[in-house]
């Protein structure tokens, strides 16, 4: 039984790199391993990034992305190429749904009270302050409703267009834009103190 995998890293067929995602999916349906490898090499980072933004954990984000790709490998027909949905949009939705499932299953994690050694070259206080600020932003985003977090992760952090993000989330573009605006207004309010609160209230009027 053949259990070895020819890692394509060194010998990735130049031809597969030239294919679009949709063409690669067509080849993947025929069990083409190079096509799978090319898709993994091409897209792992972007899907990891979304998963990380949703779960705030490297291990879990890597797990989610790995599971999603392995499911794609074992049942490539789950993507219906006949529809108008692009592969990347569809796979964002797969990863996002997995993240939502994982979030609902996981218990709230205790706050990280460990101490990371500060970066060299920075004063300890400055590094601590930066760490606190980052954690504060993370905590504020974590308090947003799931849909607002997703809209923010997709549009703001991943640079996905509003239209594509709306398609991924299965909402209208108007609804997506409303989610984005509310997310930003809440964050301004939480992060900006009184000034932000004032702006947020003006924005809601």
């Amino acid at each position: 039984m053949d259990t070895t995998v020819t890692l394509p890293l060194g010998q990735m067929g130049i031809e597969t790199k030239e294919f679009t995602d949709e063409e690669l999916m067509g080849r993947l349906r025929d069990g083409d391993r190079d096509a799978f490898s090319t898709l993994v090499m091409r897209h792992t980072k972007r899907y990891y990034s979304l998963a990380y933004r949703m779960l705030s954990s490297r291990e879990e984000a890597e797990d989610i992305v790995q599971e999603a790709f392995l499911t794609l490998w074992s049942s490539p027909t789950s993507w219906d190429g006949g529809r108008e949905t692009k592969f990347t949009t569809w796979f964002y939705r797969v990863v996002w749904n997995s993240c939502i499932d994982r979030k609902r299953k996981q218990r709230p994690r205790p706050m990280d009270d460990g101490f990371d050694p500060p970066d060299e070259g920075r004063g300890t206080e400055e590094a601590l302050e930066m760490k606190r600020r980052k954690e504060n932003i993370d905590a504020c985003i974590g308090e947003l409703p799931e849909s607002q977090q997703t809209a923010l992760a997709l549009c703001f952090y991943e640079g996905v267009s509003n239209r594509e993000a709306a398609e991924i989330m299965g909402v209208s573009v108007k609804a997506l834009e409303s989610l984005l605006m509310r997310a930003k207004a809440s964050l301004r309010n939480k992060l900006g103190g009184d000034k932000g609160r004032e702006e947020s209230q003006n924005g809601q009027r």
Partner: protein
Amino acid sequence: MDRDEFLKYLKLYGGDLGRWPSGLGEEARAACAGSLEMREALDQERRFEESLMERVYEEPSPGLEARIISAAASVNKPEPARNSLLGLLNAVFSAIPLPSPAIALPLLLVIGMAAGYLYANYAEQDTDNTQYAEMLYYGEEYYE
């Protein structure tokens, strides 16, 4: 673009004017050039977004891609879709170019009319056959 419009779009599309829908970004740039208030609002939005970018982010482990590709070895290789009946049907139908809806509707109409015409002839012939059989059974005088 007036002030209110600018502020609305600023909240919607963010401080990077390059990411605004085509046309709007240029309009916004031109509007900002003539308004201190708009420039300040833009700067404020950019500072806010920069602060959001400070959020904790960890890069994935090096070699995550290679790990996923290796892990695929332990998962059954997908059978080519044509091996199953469904796959075969799929392959057959995907090989046949199906007409687009614009062509399909008139085509259906023509097929329907042709079927109606043929059926009408067949029904007429059927009536003739029935009459002939009845004539044999009842005798010719029955129809006279």
